[in-house]
């Protein structure tokens, strides 16, 4: 079973690793080359102390290195990311625009660096750079979202499953389900007891059962009723009504014992007379 699983998944894994090797090789290559070029251009700016008076050829070369370096960095990042069809289209367009911008700059900076050429060249490069960076950013966002969905949801499910379905709980659920099914089946059973075996019962057997007669007030019935229905209404004339009435009169009678005594004397006096 395990071997079968391994065989099933091996082709995809190989494909993924092959794609990964190539794409990551180029991606890394471009990214490192880009960093080196940017570093070289930055070092050259500092070394040659580039300013508005510097030699045009030198400025063109250094800025071209810088532009190519930035392009390579963005290309490297894009190579390392898994691209969709749209991604490859934007990636290609960005590369073309940025490349065109660099080539145009290189050819025009010394001789034709005037408006509107400058605008077109800068716009082409900027558009290309932004397309590449935007594509990389978009792909990273999509990848992160997918990854969070893929990783979090199975984790949540597995945790939930572990928490809710232990072996004991599964067994308990199975037992409950079986009991429920059995109960339903039993409820639907119709016993036909009239078609059983026929016996002749002995005639001289009137009172073979042991009969015991016992005096019993069965007060438990009332107590059980009150326990099962504590909020139930008391019946008129019941013991509960008497008890409640006594308690109520005792609560409402707020006369002091002395006052009670005086009223009792008055009551007796008038009654006697």
């Amino acid at each position, binding site marked *: 079973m395990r071997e079968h699983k391994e065989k099933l998944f091996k082709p995809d894994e190989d494909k993924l690793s092959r794609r990964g090797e190539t794409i990551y090789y180029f991606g890394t290559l471009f990214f490192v080359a880009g960093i080196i070029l940017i570093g070289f251009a930055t070092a050259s700016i500092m070394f040659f102390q580039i300013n508005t008076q510097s030699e045009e050829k030198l400025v063109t070369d250094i800025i071209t290195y810088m532009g190519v370096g930035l392009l390579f960095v963005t290309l490297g990042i894009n190579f390392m990311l898994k691209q969709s069809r749209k991604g490859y289209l934007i990636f290609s367009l960005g590369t073309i625009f940025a490349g065109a911008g660099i080539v145009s700059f290189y050819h025009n900076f010394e001789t034709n660096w005037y408006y509107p050429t400058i605008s077109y060249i800068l716009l082409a490069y900027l558009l290309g750079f932004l397309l590449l960076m935007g594509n990389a950013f978009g792909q990273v966002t999509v990848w992160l979202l997918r990854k969070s969905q893929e990783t979090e949801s199975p984790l949540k499910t597995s945790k939930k499953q572990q928490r809710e379905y232990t072996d004991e709980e599964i067994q308990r659920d199975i037992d409950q389900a079986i*009991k429920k099914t*059995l*109960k339903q089946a*039993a*409820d639907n*059973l119709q*016993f036909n*007891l009239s078609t*059983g*075996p*026929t*016996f*002749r*019962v*002995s*005639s*001289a*057997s*009137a009172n*073979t*059962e*042991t*009969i*015991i*007669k*016992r*005096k*019993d*007030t*069965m*007060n*438990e*019935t009332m*107590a*059980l*009723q009150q*326990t*099962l*229905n504590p909020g139930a209404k008391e019946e008129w004339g019941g013991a509960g009504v008497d008890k409640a009435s006594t308690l109520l009169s005792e609560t409402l009678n707020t006369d002091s014992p002395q006052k009670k005594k005086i009223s009792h004397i008055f009551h007796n006096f008038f009654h006697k007379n």
Partner: protein
Amino acid sequence: MNIISADRNGEDIIFKRQRNAFMQIDSSDLTKNMLDTSKVLYIEDDDGIRLLGEDAFKFATIFEKEARRPMKHGIVSPQEKEAIPIMQLIVERVLGNTKDSKEVLYISTPADPIDVDMDVLYHKKTMEALTKRLKYDARVIDEGLAVIYSELADYNFTGLGVSFGAGLTNVTLAYMASPLLSFSIGRGGDWIDEQAAKSTGLTKERVTATKEKVSSLNNQVTVGSPEGALNIYYDALISYVIEHLKKRLAHITPPEVAFPVAVAGGSSLPKGFFEMFEKKMKNAKLGVELSKVVKAKDPLNSVARGCLIAAQTQESQKPTKSQKNQSSKPKVKKATH
């Protein structure tokens, strides 16, 4: 081992009891004449004569034969094909027909056993069917809860009800009349009889007869007598029940109150049984606090009485009709087995 009914008649309760047993003998005119003269309960068909109830048990003891039982381990015996018709006959005789189809009847049934692979559902349904045939409004109640209804009213029906029956021992823990825990154990009086019979070489019926006559359980016994074996196996049964109770209580969180314990059932009748049980319960470290161990006033009929209390309570809760019933003194019955 017994089928008992309880019925209210004025200020009295009438208990009607029949032994749930039968015994097959060969049919002949002489035998039939003899049985008819002796007023023995029997049935006859092509297969012969079957003595029923107490008489079957007496004959089995005299002739040292084994009485057959329609019920085994507290439920209808699957080994006896005649179990249901015989039980039907005994139940009919013990209960009688009702004129009022709304008359409530509570039947005590065992809870699911925890130490035996056995289901009591089919038994419950069979018993319901047998009694519904007699036009009763039949309902079922756990045997342990019936003991609580009968014996623990002073404790607001809160406590532990233990019924040591023939086939099973039933245990219910209830709080304010509501069961929290209910289970049965596949050992009871029959198990004691079987073990004692094996140990002494006597028939099971002879051991049962001795058990029912035994004056008390004590350590002073004659060598080789069934009393000694009975003493040992009673002790073993109580320990077994308490151990299972302890395990089951460990799985629940009951309210923090002191629970009284009520003991009933035919197998708790011998003198000394209650003291033995009380001592063991007090020494057992159960997961709940025990307040008191109460012996049923009438251990054999306690479950029947509990069912009658349940039935009367049910009757009195019926709207409008309850007033009629009160004036005409309701006749509520129950059966236990």
